[in-house]
């Protein structure tokens, strides 16, 4: 790219927008084009003609059950994560715990360790406790992996919250239970939504965890798609299933947006959180 020719053209101000051009090109090739390819393969027969057969094969009773089961695992993981993370965050953000930032850091340090290694470690522990691989172990593994992603956004919101609201509420005579439900919980909703979006959808792809801790009955849609592609003959069906998942992603994004502006940077905020 010849930068000097991009300088002052008539009516064009000297704003260095061209620094973003390489990435715009990357976006087209590596973000937009792959999605188009998924779409093309989903609607293409093995001989190259248009077909809806792939979707017929995806929308079988077996696959729908698989999808429902994945949604179930994702929901259960999200709820358990929330039930553990919220009280933890609440305590960490309250006196006297809010003085020790290092304490909060302890809760999220494992996040920087490779998750497969962490799940292997968990696997050994479950073995000692005599817990068999299967549904229960899968859920424990999912919660173990995703808990920090639920904890940090909630913790951040609670720490940033203006404590005077709570004081104002107690001053007005509300007891602490009422204060929690009327003030703290609504104000921390943004963190909750952020945490949910960072747990719910990623579970769909977390087939490594089901593979390490589950049995044949705990296959999730991410694992199924992987299998369909490793077995090269059914790429069409795999793409169609990816397409269905894509629609689900946009649907959850839409629902997430209804609950307030979702921060796309949540994950960056979580992992980069202590760097900020």
């Amino acid at each position, binding site marked *: 790219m010849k930068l000097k020719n991009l300088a002052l053209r008539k009516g064009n101000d000297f704003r*260095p*927008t061209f620094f973003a051009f390489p990435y715009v090109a990357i976006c087209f090739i590596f973000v937009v084009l*792959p999605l188009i390819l998924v779409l093309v393969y989903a609607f293409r027969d093995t001989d190259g003609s248009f077909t809806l057969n792939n979707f017929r094969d995806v929308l079988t009773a077996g696959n729908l059950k698989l999808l429902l089961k994945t949604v179930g695992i994702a929901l259960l993981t999200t709820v358990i994560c929330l039930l553990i993370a919220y009280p933890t965050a609440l305590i960490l953000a309250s006196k006297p715990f809010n003085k020790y930032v290092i304490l909060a*850091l302890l809760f999220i340090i494992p996040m*920087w360790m490779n998750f497969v290694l*962490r799940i292997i470690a968990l696997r050994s522990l479950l073995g000692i406790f005599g817990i068999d691989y299967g549904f229960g172990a899968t859920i424990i593994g999912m919660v173990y992996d995703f808990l920090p992603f639920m904890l940090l956004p909630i913790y951040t919101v609670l720490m940033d919250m203006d404590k005077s609201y709570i004081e104002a509420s107690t001053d007005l005579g509300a007891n602490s239970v009422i204060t929690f439900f009327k003030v703290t919980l609504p104000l921390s909703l943004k963190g909750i939504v952020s945490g949910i979006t960072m747990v719910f959808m990623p579970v769909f792809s977390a087939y490594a965890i089901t593979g390490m801790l589950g049995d044949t009955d705990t296959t999730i849609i991410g694992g199924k798609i992987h299998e369909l592609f490793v077995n090269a003959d059914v790429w069409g069906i795999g793409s169609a299933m990816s397409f269905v998942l894509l629609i689900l992603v946009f649907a959850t994004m839409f629902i997430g947006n209804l609950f307030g502006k979702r921060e796309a940077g949540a994950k960056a905020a979580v992992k980069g959180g202590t*760097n900020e």
Partner: protein
Amino acid sequence: MNKKLWLVLRWVFLAVVLISIYLPIMLIIVYSFSSERNIGSDSGFGDFTFSLYGRLFQNDLLMEATLNTLGIGLASALLATFIGTFTAVGLYYMRKGKKAVNLVSQVTVVNAEIVTAVGFLLLSIFLRDVIQIPIEKGVLWLIITHTVLTTPYVILTVSPRLNQLNPNLYEAGLDLGARPMRTLFTVIMPQLIGGMVSGFALAFTLSLDDFVVTNLNKGTSGVNTISTYVYDNLKRNLDPAIRALSTIIFVIVLVVLIVFNIIKNKKAKAEQSASKPLGK
């Protein structure tokens, strides 16, 4: 309720959660010094030994996977840091189209990872068979995909720092005779160093942690990262040296995070005292 009891209860709750989080890791660390092949086997802990650490360096496939992980992580994080910083600067000055670029870059962040992985796989086939670019799935392809995957996070980390800059800084560089590229490197980037380091660290850990994209794009020539190596060897007999590797990684993470936080605190304090101008 009794205030003291309430405090104790909250400590207990935190302790229980913390123990649950660290118990598996501690178990692995302890057993990395064990002579036993299996954790919790009937024979107990066995002897205290460093043999697993020695064994780790003799497992060529695992060492190769570790080097791959580090190499892919470093290369993609470096690329992502530069592309992401360039892009953040470009987007900062962009009026039209800024929203569109941000939206597309966010697709990578919010999309289900398996769909992204499938997209990359199809793209590699498309590039090879249709465009006839000789792309083979393997290390190079993994570096490219990981770069694409992590660049949006760098943009998100660097952008907020740009907003704090003096809006005329870039113009001042040009005004004094520096070309755009030179101005970017000598004027703008020195101000963004903090964001770039954070962005790099983030991109690096995301790359290290990746499994789904890597597993579908590593090709069939036996290229592995730590994640895929462990996963593939699970069904066969997994080398217990993995416990030594886990321990090393955990210690590195711990040290890096503590050092990072100490530096950050020092910097914050230094900035506080520097923000008071000395006057005339």
